[in-house]
């Protein structure tokens, strides 16, 4: 089959690789029709996440048709499914608490040692990510093996175009959980750093959850316009002093909740950012946490800090003083996708959530490298790239 493979910094290729096969009774094989490039794929593309190996198949946002099932799969051949990026067993302590992204049983045992040593606990398995999370071959391919296929995949009824449901795999529930973690109350103002896909879905979700005002912060004009289109007020940090503006726009109170939808490759021109970048360049595993620092600084006393942005290492100058002295609540984590699948599918069906506004480009799988390059280097215009396989029947 054809698949998008990682070969190093800014080097992804489309290659012919062996087809996946059933390895465990609960597996299924999916023939992919649509698969998206995610901001966290760009972290891999930029080479700032450890644990990648040459030839790894990328992609964790994908959907398609079931073509083969193991003895204990509950899927049927021919069904259309969207597959959550988190691999979860459904029966461990964490899965039973619906903390699916903390599953104990999906990361192969030998791959658990590294994160157990560096984070104190082993991470769960993820598709198309690093070998720290199992090195599972990803979904930017013609076929994917899906473990625990009786727990993860969302069966999509007829009548939904791929592009309307594809983002149930990651960014829609991730934006939704980010807003949920902000514990929004009536009258609240929520400030969102980063108008990438997760930030935009967090904005949409926060408004649906009853936020009075959402303020979106970015510097890409096109992305800010998308945020405005959803009903957010916007701040362009390249022309505005963000903290001061947030105070003035919230009656001197500060935002009730702040969402860092930027993560470890935070942009910006502040001095802390320069230090972060210098250390990232020499490979110290330092996360650039400029957006998170600014968010904590801006958040009102007793407010909530929600962090859907991806971090992997350590960050310097973390404002522990502001966190404690202002009595902030901090919530974060990989998304418990399976917790939100049904509800969000219903909201899409009811026309309450539209996700297609985000898609700026559709490309054939073969042109994945073009998609990666532009998504990484032309973020203003390339807001979301969906790759289409031949099986989708799509043509440009």
């Amino acid at each position, binding site marked *: 089959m054809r698949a998008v493979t990682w070969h190093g910094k800014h080097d992804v290729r489309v290659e012919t690789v062996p087809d996946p*096969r059933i*390895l*465990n*009774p*609960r597996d299924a094989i999916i023939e992919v029709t649509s698969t998206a490039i995610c901001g966290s794929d760009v972290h891999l593309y930029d080479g700032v996440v*450890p*644990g990648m*190996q040459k030839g790894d198949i990328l992609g964790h946002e994908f959907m398609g048709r079931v073509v083969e099932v193991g003895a*204990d799969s509950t899927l049927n051949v021919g069904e259309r499914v969207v597959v959550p990026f988190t691999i979860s*067993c*459904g*029966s*461990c*302590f964490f899965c*039973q608490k619906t903390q699916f992204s903390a599953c*104990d*049983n*999906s*990361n*192969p*045992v*030998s*791959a*658990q*040692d*590294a994160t157990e040593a560096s984070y104190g606990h082993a991470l769960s*398995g993820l598709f198309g990510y690093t*070998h*720290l999370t*199992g*090195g*599972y*071959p990803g979904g930017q391919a013609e076929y994917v093996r899906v*473990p*625990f296929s009786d727990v993860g995949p969302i069966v999509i009824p007829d009548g939904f175009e791929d592009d309307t449901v594809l983002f149930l795999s990651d960014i829609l529930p991730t934006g939704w959980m980010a807003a949920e973690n902000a514990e929004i109350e009536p009258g609240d103002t929520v400030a969102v750093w980063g108008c990438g896909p997760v930030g935009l879905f967090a904005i949409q979700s926060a408004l649906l959850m009853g936020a009075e005002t959402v303020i979106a912060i970015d510097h890409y004009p096109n992305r800010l316009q998308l945020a405005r289109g959803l009903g957010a007020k916007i701040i362009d940090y390249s022309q505005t002093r963000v903290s001061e503006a947030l105070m003035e726009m919230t009656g001197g109170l500060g935002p009730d909740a702040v969402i860092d939808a930027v993560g470890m490759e935070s942009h910006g021109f502040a001095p802390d950012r320069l230090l972060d970048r210098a250390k990232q360049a020499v490979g110290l595993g330092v996360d650039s946490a400029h957006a998170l620092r600014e968010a904590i600084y801006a958040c009102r006393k007793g407010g909530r800090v929600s962090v859907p942005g991806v971090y992997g290492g350590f960050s310097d100058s973390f404002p522990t003083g502001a966190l404690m002295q202002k009595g902030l609540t901090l919530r974060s984590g990989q998304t418990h996708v399976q917790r939100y699948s049904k509800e969000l599918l219903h909201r899409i069906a009811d026309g309450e959530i539209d996700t297609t506004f985000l898609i700026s480009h559709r490309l054939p799988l073969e042109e994945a490298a073009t998609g990666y390059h532009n998504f990484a280097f032309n973020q203003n215009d390339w807001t979301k790239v969906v790759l289409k396989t031949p099986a989708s029947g799509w043509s440009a």
Partner: protein
Amino acid sequence: MTHSTSSKSQRTAALLVAAAVLAVTVMGVRSATAARPQLQPDSAPARTSKRSQPGRYSVTGRTVLINRPRQEVYDFWRDAANLPQFMEDLESVEVLPSDDGTATGTKTRWTSRNAIGGLESVDISIVHDMPGEMIAWKSADGAMVDTRGKVTFSNAAEGRGTIVTAIQSHAAPGGMVGNALAKLWSGDPALQMRHALKRLKMLLETGEIATVGHDAPKT
């Protein structure tokens, strides 16, 4: 469990005590009023102590939470034929006749592949069996490997399943030959135990063991 201490480690211990006394003395001069409280034993298991345990055996232990009923977990472990399913270094476990000629599974022969690909066997006897609660075993007298261990099963908080703790001790290797043999046999016991318990958990909680179809990554 027997403990014997070599004269070399006695000398080392004496030096350490001397150093500690010196350190305390120096600190005492700096802050004569800060009386150090008498240390009380804490609630943590001995194997987590910062002080190394003197003696002939090195002890490793690990606890895992398995979201299945206690009796089921015990029964699975007690059936020797199941062990190679989660102890990845084991090739096979053969049940041997007991002293009275019956095959009760208390005497077994564990065969594993060593680091150079050869097969090695050691006879293991269950020395204490409390159904649903505990299984303890030891290697046969005179076996190449002197190992003993136990696994305990206890109820976790309501709704959380079973707490499984495995503790294994290996005789400290005697000399260079013993050292090499022990390494060939056992690799890293702590790592093997951690992996075995995680595989057991996967098997009992999900019915399968997570894999990507090839061996451990080379990272």
